[in-house]
């Protein structure tokens, strides 16, 4: 299929349809409302379901009920709305249902602002709602990648019967780029959804629930989830390196739009004969721990620099993985401010100067 020019929010919406996510519930919030507007027009064309709910609390729970049918369901929101969906995400994870959620992050806390940010990392990766559960979390850095990951997300959600979040920032949602949709989607076969509520005809009733009053049963359910997440960690790690080589003195760790800006930084520094590499996590949960550790441990790397559109969230995972083997530094701006390549370059030069001053 030929490339077409599309806005990120609309491209992700179309990708969801292509992946069979033809059942969508929403509540308007900037900067992702184009997803809802696009699907309001598109869903009737594909015999899908489009419904605008009364709040993100209700929408999260509509998605919960819809997922219980065994059909592919999708919702999207932005940071404050995603906060309201945390109730349903905890229940959906506890009841083991597949759903795909898009978070087009804006600045926080509170009402914050409407410009791009990456300050929902903790919420997405470290819990968000109550209980022992994880959300599989994929972070695109281009609109094409957002399309590809959205398509994959529906399969991953079905495979593990778990929520999958596409975590983008306002820049990915609002920017236009040429994208290509696959002509057909070939997925490995999945087992039939015998757990779905389809009517107890000729079988025992299916009960979709997360309540276990017997503590041993509740612990068992948490162990089932734990084992599932261990499988996810084995199978679903995604990352990309950019200009990582033996000359690098600094290793940048960055994701999403910020990683893309860091590629410009790396190209420009290369012209100044300063060698920097980029490690870009694509899956934020599961975090690419082994791969990052390997790159950070290389003898030529003097400093690991985490760059985020936040006050420093993912950097805690980088520190956890690097385990003190190298100094882990942080640079970030937030509140909707997207760091410029010059700002990041300055930061790297400053780091290198202080390194050489130390001898």
């Amino acid at each position, binding site marked *: 299929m030929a490339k077409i020019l599309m806005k990120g929010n609309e491209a992700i919406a179309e990708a969801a349809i292509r992946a069979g996510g033809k059942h969508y519930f929403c509540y308007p919030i900037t900067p992702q409302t184009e997803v809802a507007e696009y699907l309001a027009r598109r869903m009737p064309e594909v015999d899908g379901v489009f419904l605008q709910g009364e709040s993100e609390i209700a929408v999260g729970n509509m998605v919960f009920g819809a997922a219980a049918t065994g059909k592919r369901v999708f919702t999207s929101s932005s940071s404050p709305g995603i906060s309201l969906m945390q*109730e349903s995400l905890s229940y959906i994870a506890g009841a083991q249902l597949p759903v795909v959620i898009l978070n087009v992050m804006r600045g926080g806390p509170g009402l914050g602002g409407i410009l791009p940010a990456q300050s929902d990392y903790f919420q997405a990766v470290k819990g968000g709602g109550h209980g022992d559960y994880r959300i599989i979390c994929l972070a695109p850095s281009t609109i094409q990648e957002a399309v590809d990951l959205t398509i994959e997300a529906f399969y991953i959600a079905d495979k593990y019967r778990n929520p999958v979040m596409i975590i983008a920032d306002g820049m990915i949602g609002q920017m236009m780029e040429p994208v290509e949709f696959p002509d057909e989607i070939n997925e490995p076969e999945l087992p039939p959804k015998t757990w779905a509520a389809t009517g107890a005809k000729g079988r025992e009733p299916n009960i979709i629930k997360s309540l276990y009053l017997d503590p041993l049963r509740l612990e068992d359910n948490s162990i089932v989830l734990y084992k599932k997440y261990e499988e996810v960690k084995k199978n679903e790690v995604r990352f990309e390196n950019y200009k990582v080589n033996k000359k690098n003195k600094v290793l940048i760790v960055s994701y999403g739009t910020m990683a893309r800006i860091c590629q410009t930084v790396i190209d420009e520094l290369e012209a100044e004969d300063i060698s920097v590499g980029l490690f870009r996590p694509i899956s934020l949960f599961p975090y690419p721990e082994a791969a990052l550790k390997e790159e950070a441990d290389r003898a030529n790397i003097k400093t690991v620099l985490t760059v985020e559109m936040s006050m420093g969230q993912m950097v805690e995972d980088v520190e956890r993985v690097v385990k003190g083997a190298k100094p882990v530094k942080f640079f970030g701006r937030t509140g909707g401010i997207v760091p410029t390549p010059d700002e990041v370059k300055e930061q790297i030069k400053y780091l290198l100067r202080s390194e050489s001053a130390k001898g």
Partner: protein
Amino acid sequence: MEEQSKTIFDRPESLRDVVTHYCPGCTHGIIHRLVAEALDELGLRERTCGVAPVGCSVLCYNYYNCDFLEAPHGRAPALATGFKRLRPDMIVFTYQGDGDLASIGMAEIIHAANRGEKFTTIFVNNAIYGMTGGQMAPTTLEGQITSTCPNGRNLEDVGHPIRVSELLATLATPSYIERVSVHSPMHIIKAKRAIKKAFELQAENKCFTMIEVLSTCPTNWGITPGDSLDWVEKNLLAYYPLGVKKRPDQGDK
């Protein structure tokens, strides 16, 4: 002799042969049975999905013999909306208490009713939070003593109890809303008729139907099961008048 061995009363197929956890004198059991009888008589069990609330009836899926979802507190109408929109061929009902529906879930029920979602809500109102041990609900009567209004509900402090059926009946979209009670055999027969009618209307693809059922809570009201039935007659009926609040011919969409 053969005549005498004929079964004239049995457990509905839509209920399982299990012991419930409900307190003595609680009328959840009667209401469960009425819903099950309606599903049986209309032949709907095999294509029905219930949605359980949070509260005393959270475990009702252990007693019904059909598919069930368990919702977060107050969100049953949102789950039912999502489910029914994807499976309009199925019969969907929520079973919710007054804390669940009239307090934490008020937004979800009003908007589901107003959109005309094609499911049935069984709203069990006993004017108190049962599961958590007898706290004040939005439906608690003036002067009624609960553990969070130990001196009785004070209207100046927390306002009047909400009449949910009348509130929802102000909306143009819902097709059928009726308040019934189960504190006497006559009332039980009338309640059964209303519940069955709600499911019939749903099976005919009519939009939102709700039956509010006045119920008892001897444990948390602190009176005997027998006195609880009298308390329903004397106090609940006085504030929550029985009857049809919205008919299918009044502005069905």
